[in-house]
């Protein structure tokens, strides 16, 4: 479960953590991705596992468009830039939820039969549900990919440089908007991947994103802003803490443990575990 939180958080780690742009619509991105993979299954009978790359590609375009149409302008605000970002993306989240209700109705949907759904696999005597296992593997791969991408490619350096000093970056011929649009696209594509896998074993409804979004913020902040590895570690810690809390406290209180650990960590280390900002 921890790696799944990590998978949801990895896209956010890129947008929120590395680009320092607040995205309050992250949960809704997840929701859209889950619907996409649901409809690909319902109409074309494409298994979510196969459609995951398609969903990710569609989400890439969606993320880039959101950046170019909205976020670009929110970042340009001279006053209260932080609040403008928060409420622009919050407004976007409400619109997306409304649109989902309008077009998809508030009904709960699920993907009844898929290659992975409901199956378990036995590893050394421990039964693991297959979808979660695949989710965990994809999550590790996504993190490794993002880590290499950010630290080993020119684009990764451009991204970091753009956050540090957009003016100086412009002087050396990097188009800030292109870099950030690509970053948003990539962040959304990663959420798309998460959505496609989660569509297999979660109910899909217009408000589904909200329940995961807060945990994703906490995960990123716990690991520390500006660190891909931090978000990965954050995801694992969140998953472990949740599992332990569920043993000690009633299930409805399982998130309390996660929140308490976040507070404890930032009180001791105000920059999160591996944060650089």
């Amino acid at each position, binding site marked *: 479960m921890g790696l799944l939180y990590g998978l949801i958080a990895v896209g956010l780690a890129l947008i929120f953590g590395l680009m320092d742009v607040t995205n309050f619509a992250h949960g809704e991105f997840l929701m859209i991705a889950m619907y996409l993979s649901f409809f690909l299954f319902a109409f074309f009978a494409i298994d979510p596992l196969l459609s995951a790359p398609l969903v990710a590609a569609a989400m890439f375009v969606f993320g880039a468009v959101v950046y170019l149409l909205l976020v670009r302008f929110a970042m340009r605000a001279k006053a209260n830039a932080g*609040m403008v970002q928060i409420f*622009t993306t919050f*407004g976007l989240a409400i619109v997306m939820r409304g649109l989902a209700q*309008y077009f998809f109705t508030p009904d709960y949907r699920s993907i009844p039969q898929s290659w992975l759904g409901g199956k378990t696999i036995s590893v050394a005597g421990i039964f693991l549900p297959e979808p979660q296992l695949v989710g965990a593997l994809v999550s590790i791969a996504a993190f490794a990919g993002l880590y290499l991408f950010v630290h080993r490619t020119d684009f990764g350096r451009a991204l970091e440089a753009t956050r540090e000093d957009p003016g100086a970056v412009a002087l050396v011929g990097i188009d800030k908007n292109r870099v950030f649009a690509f970053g948003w696209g990539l962040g959304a594509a990663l959420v798309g991947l998460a959505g496609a896998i989660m569509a297999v074993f979660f109910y899909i409804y217009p408000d589904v994103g909200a329940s995961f979004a807060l945990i994703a913020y906490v995960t990123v902040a716990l690991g520390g802003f500006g660190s891909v590895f931090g978000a990965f570690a954050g995801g694992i810690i969140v998953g472990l803490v949740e599992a332990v809390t569920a043993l000690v406290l009633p299930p*409805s209180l399982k998130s309390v443990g996660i929140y308490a650990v976040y507070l404890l960590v*930032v009180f001791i280390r105000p920059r999160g575990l591996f944060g650089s900002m």
Partner: protein
Amino acid sequence: MDKAFAARRRRDLIIAAVLAGLAALAPLLIKDVYVQNILILTLMYAALSQSWNILSGYCGQISLGHALYFGIGAYTTELLFTKFGVLPWFGMLAGGVIAAIIAMGLGYPFFRLRGHYFVIATIVIAEIGLLLFQNWEWAGAAMGITVPVRGDSWLKFQFMRSKLPYFYFALVLCSLAWFVTWWLEDSKWGFWWRAVKDNPEAAESLGVVVFNSKMGAAAVSAFLVAIGGAFYAQFLAYIDPESVMGFQFSLLMALPAVLGGIGTLWGPVLGAAILIPMTELTRSYIGGSGRGVDLIVYGALIVAISLALPRGLVSLFSRSKAKGATR
């Protein structure tokens, strides 16, 4: 202090008095209960947002967890009332004091945090409060508390037949929150807060005790919000954790101030006066279909206003006083 500033403050006070006077007369003309309901909610959100603005606007410590204090105000009042028969008036004060104490207790570790880390901590602490109340059997858990009907009286602050008493209380609360802000704006505290917001290091070096300033702002802000929570509980006569402590509430409290103009005297009132009627009207006229059209309109308006007017709606009024307004 320069004369222009003093003149502006005097003028603000006069405008506020006139507006409050006009508002007090409004029920003579408006008999429709539905419209009265909207007015009450508008005044309440204006008061809440004004209180939120003290900590987040003036002092610059963006809190998205004020639902915690709202819920504490509501729950303190109703628990004392239903379990011990304490009159809501005392419960209201108790709620305010408890909220202020909690705000300062939380401020002790919280105010060391900066930026996103602080904002997320405020969200998280409110969420913990929500989960605890949802699981607290004695306090009604997720079912909440229904306030028993004991007949209309000012003593018990309960009115079934008419909404007018609630209207007047909301008006007083809103005026109080405005007046406190107005008064603090020109006090030692007000100047400290703005200094802390603009540049904490410089403020500290000039002798402002940054930490204490933040604590003061948090306590005042939490106290007023909790009073608002107590009012809301009496007004609805029913509370449950999600409806008084949910994350949505923290955002709804911040929204009028942000859209109206964060860190300004008139921003919250202006924002609430436009946003709340708009929310209620879209909900009742196009929300009935249950298909979320109201959400689409509402969300789109929030996006449009925050993008078009990053300084908030007050910036539309500040052509001439643009210089004065930024101080």
